[in-house]
């Protein structure tokens, strides 16, 4: 099965990181990605730019005929936002949990991907 590992956190904390801390975190993510590669479990992943830079499109209905409104900012104004994701291959949820536990992040949501 494929799972998305969604990394959530407080952007204020992320934005306040020193260069040194950023380099350390990047190194830890590289280690995590390498571990996934070695196990053949890596299906992709990206870090997202801060949510300040997001643009949200909205329609009244799910129809191409409907007019689109374009607004600045993320979909939901919450303290904890999506900051990045991995897509992994795992036999089942238990295996996905074992892999996700090795992510150096505070909050990780595991979502199965629809086959």
């Amino acid at each position, binding site marked *: *099965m494929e799972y998305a590992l969604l990394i959530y956190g407080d952007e204020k904390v992320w934005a306040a990181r020193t260069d040194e801390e950023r380099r350390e975190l990047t190194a830890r993510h590289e280690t995590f990605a390498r571990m996934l590669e070695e196990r053949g479990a890596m299906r992709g992943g990206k870090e997202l730019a801060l949510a300040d830079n997001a643009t949200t499109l909205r329609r009244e209905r799910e129809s191409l005929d409907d007019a689109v409104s374009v607004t600045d900012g993320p979909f939901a104004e919450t303290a904890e936002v999506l900051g990045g994701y991995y897509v992994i291959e*795992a*036999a*089942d949820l*238990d295996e996905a949990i074992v892999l996700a536990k090795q992510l150096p992040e505070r909050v990780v949501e595991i979502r*199965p991907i629809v086959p």
Partner: protein
Amino acid sequence: MTAQEAVEQAYRDHWARLLALLVTRLRRFDVVEDGLQDAFVAAARTWPEQGVPDRPAAWLLTAARRRALDRLRREETDQRRLPLLVTDEVAEDEPGVLTDERLRLLFACAHPALSPDARAALMLRFGAGLRTAEIARLFLVPEPTMAARLTRAKAKIAVAGIPLRAPTADELPARLGILLKVVYLLFTEGYRATDGAELQRPRLAAEAIRLGYVLGELLPDQDEIVALLALMILQHARRDARVDDGRLVLLADQDRSRWHHDELARGRSLVNGLAEPYGQYHLQALIAAEHSSGAPDWPRIAGLYAELERRTGSPVVRLNRAVAVAEAGSPEAALAMVEDLEKTLPRNHLVPTVRAELLARLDRRAEAASAFDAALALVRTDPERAHLTRRRAEF
């Protein structure tokens, strides 16, 4: 035994085992439940005419598997999207295999990725084999509510990929801990309901005990299972004496002839067979054994609670410890112990109840009266409310 009785007997004896066996192969709860249902309907129709088969379980397994596979094939033709999830052919009716399947199913039902409500419902459905309507009655919710809860939980198991496998040796202590907690929560809800007209729901408590026996058979040599089983048996044995005419009866006033002494003996012999070091359920079972001894050794009970509090840090344990300390002759010390509990357990009526009784014992009547009022504002079962109202009137 008539053919109809044989079908009912087969349902009680084999339903949960057959379900576990088929679900671990086909990985689809809905299809397997329907297939099993079909098989029992077929048995009820054909056994009276053709006679009860020599091996009813094998007959039912074959019939249920065929019907479940039919359903899966039909779905596949209808939708052309589902791969047939059959992993391998079903093994013959070997006891060892079935044991393993049931254990896998129980651990899936108590998976940490499921909500506590879902775990409890799944455990009764697939561990104890109760029907949805019965589970709804035991939890005092409408049947459609319980059906929806079970459907959601089954969908989560399938969609999220919760595996049907027994934990590895490394995982076992933590996973068994959750599993036992699910069983014990079922029991405590049966032993002391959180709300409703009845103080206890003996049927729910009995189902929890049955699950304890099942676990003990499936995982022999696990002291925590035996300890939990002993604890539940000892507490359940006093069920008929705890309520009289809809009124709560406290331990000291219980009619001991209404205790089930055979069950108490069974519980005690289980506790006595346990080795040190004490686990949490072991400590609680020792306390329950003291409580039902006729002449409880309160200083010993207080000591056991102190050890339990040290391990768990639980405010509920502290409350119980305070009661034991008061019974052992130190109500002032007990009162000091419950002083800050109203902050940590603000909605638990037992905190002001215990405070009220301690104040009453110290003859601080006005404070006792107001503590009883606080308890009455929080209490949610009728027998306890009646008891508190009566006590309040004495001050």
